[in-house]
């Protein structure tokens, strides 16, 4: 239940931001959408097994390591995408004086 709330609110806030003006806010929206997707990936392994998936470290049953591995790379890739969007905003600030593309259309 809490997982559903977390994913839902992050997705909603992200959606709201990507529909605003300005590339930076769109970038921030994508960060939040990324959080939502990442949390969903991790909880897809189940929330009942929460042990650290390291041999000899977990007291209880270990969490599913596969979604964690996927999520780890997803976080870094998301970072790469954020940087790319920021670079777009950076470039737009040079070309347009602002990161808002809508004046151009």
């Amino acid at each position, binding site marked *: 239940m*809490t997982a559903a709330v977390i994913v839902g609110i992050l997705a909603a*806030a992200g959606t709201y931001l*990507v529909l605003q003006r300005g590339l930076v806010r769109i970038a921030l929206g994508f960060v939040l959408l990324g959080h939502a997707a990442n949390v969903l990936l991790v909880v897809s*392994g189940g929330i009942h097994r929460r042990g650290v998936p390291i041999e000899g470290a977990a007291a209880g049953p270990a969490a599913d390591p596969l979604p964690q591995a996927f999520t780890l790379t997803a976080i870094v890739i998301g970072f790469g995408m954020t940087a790319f969007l920021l670079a777009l905003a950076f470039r737009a600030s040079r070309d347009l004086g602002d990161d808002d593309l809508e004046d151009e259309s």
Partner: protein
Amino acid sequence: MSPELVGLSLLLLSGAALLAPLLAHALGRDAGYPLAALFAAALAVLAVPATAVLDGERVVLSLQWAPGLDVRFILALDGLSLLFAILVLAIGAVVMLYSARYLSPDARHARFYTLLTLFAASMLGLVLAGDVMVLFVFWELTSVTSFLLIGGRGGGEARSAAMRAFLVTGLGGLALFAGLVLMSITAGTGDMSRILADPGVVAGSSLAPLILALVLAGAFTKSAQFPFHFWLPGAMVAPTPVSTYLHAATMVKAGVYLVARMTPLFAYGGPWRTIIVLVGLVTAIVGASLALKQYDLKALLAYSTVSQLGFLMALAGVGTSAALAAMAAHVLAHALYKATLFMVVGIIDREAGSRDIRQLTGLRKAMPLTAAATGLAALSMAGFPPFLGFVSKEEAFAAFLAAPGPGWFAPTAAAMAAASASLTFAYGARIFDGAFEGPLTQELFDPRRSFLLPAALTALTGLALGIGVGWLNPVAGVAAGVATGAPAEVDLALWHGFTPALALATAMVTLGFVLFRFRQRVDRALEPVHLPASGARLFDRVYDATLAAGRASAAPFTSGVPAAHLGWVLASLTAAGVAAWLVWSPQTPAPLTGGETGADQVVAALLVLGAAGAALARSRTGAVAVLGIVGFLVAVVYVLLGGPDLAITQLLVETLTVALVVLVFRRLPQAFRAVGRVRRSGAAAAAVMVGAVAALGTYALTGRREISEAGAYFLRAGPDEAGGRNVVNTILVDFRALDTLGEITVLAVAAVGVMALAAAVRRDDGAPDPSLMLREAARVLTPGMILLAVYFLLRGHDAPGGGFIAALIAGATLVLQYLSGGVRRVRSLLPVPPASLLGAGLLLAVGYGAAGLLAGGEFLQGAIWEVELGPASAKLAASLAFDVGVFLVVLGAFAAYLHAFGSEDG
């Protein structure tokens, strides 16, 4: 020995293509001479296997190519291949000789010679191919080189003609590909000799109509058959040597070659022969009528080529030994006279500055040698005895008259063939007449001997082979053998006695002469005749409409307003989520309750506040601050769910993201742009929808208690097989290392994109003045942080850490350096350019993978070594090298971001 020589011939020509740019740089246009010698050498190499072929053998070279697809690289020289190989290499050599004088002496010709030689190699490969896939690959290569040669460096007209030719032959090529794939599936082999030895397997199957129709679509488009003929006249914008070689002598005959090659399939049964013969003969008549209307010599020759291709296609369609022997003779005859005429037109164009047949009068007086070559070729084209063009046509009439089929078929075909031939006679006579008769209107001279020699060579060969046509019998015989599998007895001769074919030939000459004699009246009669729809215009209309439809369908997603197309994406994702819910929810077990802690609820509540704050923040600084808090809370979620690696990664990424955002914000206004109320409510509605679907989906799909099968396997195998106790890390660098390799590649590409985007932005405004405390902190902390990064990198296999986390720690060190003195300080700590780090990391990762292959295992297969260290022993996994590669790429990417966004000075 023989089979290797067949391969060597193709190899020689491919080598010539590699050599061509060097030769062209060294010799300029004279590169044509050594290339012609290489063509001749490739032909000479074929002499030994050719003797075996003339004895009725089939010389086969079969090499392993794609064992997984059961495709072998088969080259086979038989009679039909020999005929076309001679054509490709001999005419190729002549065209090379001609190019050496046709091209301008002072320009660069590396591209031209390379492409022309490459085309020749592709064409040779096409006619030697013994496997359907090999055939297809070379077939497409000829289309591509043809496209590049037509388009050249010309302007819009050349480009659109090239595009038209390429699309028509390319679509035909796709059809052919489908046909050949179905054919090899049906036959269970791609080996053409096995498919054709037992034609019933393919031609008798239920798929036969589809297969043969697809193959014919390829053949008809390539050989410019009606109604696909229109691309060929357009292709005449190419330089004359290209028109001569590709669009008259060789490439356009590939379709005829294919149909002749597949004769056993088309002859097996069904209406195929009739269809091919009728399409061919209609093409012959339409092409010849259109040729009669042309005044531009090159256009006339183009339509004439269309007509002759139709004639050849019809002969291939008849498919009897006699028809194929006539086709063999006519292929040679046509190549010889058409090559001559194209080359002569090029000469006249160069010397007289015009290609208009009405201005081309009295040539004999000013350019006697050129006129003589023109005359010889025109007479052969017209079908005048004793030229080869006459013999081949008479043999063709005989073959049509004896064509198997219903009673009406043979006479109809023969009559149509004779009609097209008399039209051909008429325009051939016009060229001859133009060359020799009439007053001289310009001051002209014969060109240099070296320019004229190639055309004279082909013109005289056409005459010599007509008189000595008996010499062609062995080649034509083995070529015709494709129909039965054994060499055919053929008797090509200038004089067969008084036969029905001779009567037809006489009628052809008579009618042709009448058409020529009364040419003014013919012209007047033809004037109002137009095809109801020009193929080219129709094609252009379809082409433009396709592009317009593409633009229209993309319009909603290409607006300048990001929200407009992001809205589409979000809406379809939401719709897909709802649809998935409707489809799968009945099978999904009800979510399990319980398993939640008080901590979960607190974090969730805080996240609701944080996310709402991030969405509603008005100022940039406020938004970044809230964003950092949200990221921190997400890290806590990962801790609660048992993912320490994730939590560390998330925290570091969040820190670095905030650093980057701040760097970018320095150049932007403080506050966000306000948006209107309507837009805000729309966004809010969309947000609620997306959030609700995401929450419902999460609730419905994440309730299971059992661990996934894959997860259980990794937990078990990670420590044992990959030698690491940290299972998440073993998945990243070992079990699913290929995924990781793909991901760091994406990261590297995105980093290069960031550098390119930011490269144009000048960074003249200085970074904020660093405080003394920051400088001191950087000085003190940096060595420790570097050590920490190395420590996390090394222990990653057994405890939280690894390449990703270590690189992010190192990235934080770089941020610290930046804050204490700008990009200059970053560079002094990390003097390597970011792009080199990206490259080195990817190379290391790929090299590690390749080492696994070389060691006899799989790509990216690791190894574990036990290392004795005195009393203690440690396990060392080779995958550490891969993790170092990951480290370098991620660090390189982050360094690239700092270089891109940061200021040079502190």
